[in-house]
């Protein structure tokens, strides 16, 4: 055990100290930040002209929605049911419905659309409504003050009581006329992100394991080392060590990306800096979705900053089952890597140089690449047959399952997929250890599949 820790330490330290590690650590977040920032940026600047139909049962918002450069509003007098029925024919981009409320002040609105509604439109509507409601509240307050002059005026109190949060919920009108609350975008982004992360991680660090093994073979240090440790210890030490390098890099990326995104979005929007952490926002949202759906007059909303785009994202994040998502990610991330790491190590052991790896790389890379290629299909039909089989087959499940998870997967499927992955992790490691053990002592021998098969049976 002591020795395997020594091995892990060496594998880790020699890699973390490399210049390439530093470069990747810096380049990665820049790339990822670009992926995150650009859509937000685009969403706030979308310049296609869109029309939004408005049904306002409260009557408070008549003529309040002013047309902008890219949004046109028109008011409907029909009832909501027929408006919804006609929506698909109308050619409108979205249908805004502000229901009559029991309490005098409206606090929510529903936005019907065929697809998902752009963040900029949603936030524009929200801003208009918030301003209107706040104006109304303030007016009422001022009237109160005029009639009741005994109490001293506390401006802060007034402002606080006026503060309003408006919920704009998006509901998707599907082809069949069914309605479903839509957070598809965010599910899709999360699933894709998680899947791609796992894909990259396995590829990048799996091939680092392979290169490490080849390096030990070509530099001929391997025999010196395995006279002190068992080949299996060396192999696992290398896989774990490299995996930890990957986790370190990943963690640095997350931290740095978050930093860059925060800085960049605040510069872009110019609406003041969004200093909310995800945690704060989630707490806030939890409060916002309280059962009574009452307006929040409290400090959380007072502190709320105006970066709507980011807030919307956080709001949608709320619909994802995060404990499951994170748990699954960690699991598939680790076991997927460990399984592939063993396979990569076996390849490294079997060949003499990187040029010889091609023929053995193919069966490993094909399932991985395939699961990325099929991504679109999984997203379109997350519960379909293809998605199911891909997310259960161990060589594709780490990527495929992660794409599916945000859409909701039955627990038995997740359990089956995890079970199979663990089994095949054990199986591949056992196999890889056999190939590795024999291969590392073979120099200058062209190895083919028949040869590998022999090694398995030694």
């Amino acid at each position, binding site marked *: 055990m002591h*020795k395997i820790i*020594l*091995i892990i330490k*060496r594998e880790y330290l*020699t890699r973390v100290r490399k210049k390439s590690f530093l470069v990747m650590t810096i380049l990665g977040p820049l790339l990822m930040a670009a992926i995150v920032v650009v859509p937000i940026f685009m969403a706030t600047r979308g310049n296609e002209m869109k029309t939004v139909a408005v049904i306002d049962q409260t009557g408070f918002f008549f003529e309040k929605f002013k047309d902008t450069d890219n949004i046109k509003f028109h008011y409907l007098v029909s009832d909501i049911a027929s408006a919804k029925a006609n929506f698909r024919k109308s050619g409108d981009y979205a249908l805004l419905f502000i229901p009559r409320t029991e309490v005098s002040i409206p606090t929510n609105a529903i936005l019907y659309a065929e697809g998902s509604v752009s963040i900029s439109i949603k936030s524009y509507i929200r801003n208009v409504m918030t301003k209107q409601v706040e104006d109304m509240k303030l007016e009422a307050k001022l009237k109160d003050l005029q009639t009741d002059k005994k109490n001293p005026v506390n401006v802060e109190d007034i402002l606080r009581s006026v503060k309003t949060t408006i919920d704009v919920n998006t509901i998707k009108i599907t082809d069949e006329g069914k309605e479903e609350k839509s957070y598809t975008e965010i599910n899709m982004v999360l699933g894709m992100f998680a899947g791609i992360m796992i894909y990259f991680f396995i590829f990048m660090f799996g091939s680092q394991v392979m290169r490490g093994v080849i*390096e*030990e073979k070509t*530099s*001929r*240090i391997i*025999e*010196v*080392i*395995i*006279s*002190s*440790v068992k*080949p299996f210890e060396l192999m696992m030490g290398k896989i774990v060590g490299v995996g930890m390098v990957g986790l370190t890099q990943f963690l640095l990326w997350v931290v740095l990306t978050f930093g860059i995104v925060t800085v960049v979005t605040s510069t872009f929007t110019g609406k003041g800096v969004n200093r909310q952490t995800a945690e704060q926002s989630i707490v806030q949202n939890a409060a916002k979705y309280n059962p009574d759906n009452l307006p929040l007059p409290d400090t959380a909303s007072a502190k709320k900053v105006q970066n709507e785009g980011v807030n919307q994202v956080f709001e949608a994040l709320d619909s994802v089952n995060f404990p499951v998502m994170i748990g699954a990610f960690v699991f598939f991330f680790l076991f997927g890597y460990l399984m592939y790491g063993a396979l990569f190590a076996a390849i490294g052991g079997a060949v003499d140089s990187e040029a010889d790896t091609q023929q053995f790389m193919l069966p490993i890379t094909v399932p991985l690449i395939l699961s990325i290629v099929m991504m679109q299909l999984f997203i379109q039909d997350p519960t379909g047959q293809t998605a199911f089989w891909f997310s259960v087959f161990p060589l594709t499940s780490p990527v495929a399952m992660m794409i599916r998870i945000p859409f909701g997967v039955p627990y038995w499927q997740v359990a089956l997929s995890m079970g199979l992955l663990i089994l095949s992790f054990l199986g591949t490691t056992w196999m890889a250890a056999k190939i590795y053990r024999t291969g590392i*002592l073979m*120099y200058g021998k062209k190895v083919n599949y028949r040869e590998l098969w*022999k090694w398995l049976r*030694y």
Partner: protein
Amino acid sequence: MELFSAFNISKQFSGHKALDKVSISIPEGSIFGLLGPNGAGKTTFIRIINQIIAPDEGQLFFNGRELKPNDIYNIGYLPEERGLYKKMTVGEQSMYLAQLKGLSKHEAQKRLLYWFEKFEMRSWWNKKIEELSKGMQQKVQFLITIIHEPKLLIFDEPFSGFDPINASMLKDEIIAQKDKGATVIFSTHNMASVEELCDHIALINNANVVLDGPVRGIKKTYKTNTFEISCNNYQGELGAILPSAFTIIKEWTDHDLRMASIRIPDGASPNQLISALLPNVTLHSFSELIPSMNDIFIRVVTENKSEPVLQA
């Protein structure tokens, strides 16, 4: 007392027999030469001793009991195919390998510094391996092999890559290790160094031990009762003055001396040769021709391929 012995070791690699019931005993405190042509199975045998691979059958004993996994801490191995991490510094690398051999960090550092000082390598500590010459790398490798002061040292072609100065330094160090009580297994094709260093040898050919024993004994077995003489003051044929049972193998002149190598029959005494010569020539030198390990190696490998094991 034997430090290490192998009994009936066999190992097969998919259809090809690398070792076939090989038995070898290595006396404690000896330098044991493990010889054999390429592909004879030496490296396989050494890897079995190091527990890098397991034999198909047979038993291994270390220090009087069965060989255990932990015995690798008592073995130092310098493989023929050897190298170091090119991008790692000498110091870090040495520390790592020494610790893998079971030394504590503190102990590893202490011993390494002692040896680096002794071999005048102190300035290499922070250099990367790729910055060192091949000979320098070999020195580092040698040092790592002995750093944990093992009871059994195994050197596979240790002199390859060394210049004569460093080779002689290495030779002295191997002898010094032996004097300190270590037992050395020494595998090489360099017969001169076998002659110089080894007490015992085993010759492996075609997966079998074909020759095994103390170097002196082996040489005695393989000597052919041949003597080399140099003389002058004789004009006629040498054959005319020698008894017919004596064979002249070769005759030549070296400046003004007549030289010859003569084989005497089994059971005859060298004195008979001298007494036959003395009345007719002025004898300048007389010596027995002892076969070199090189000759024995070649003879055994080429002639005795199918013959049973010769015990000396």
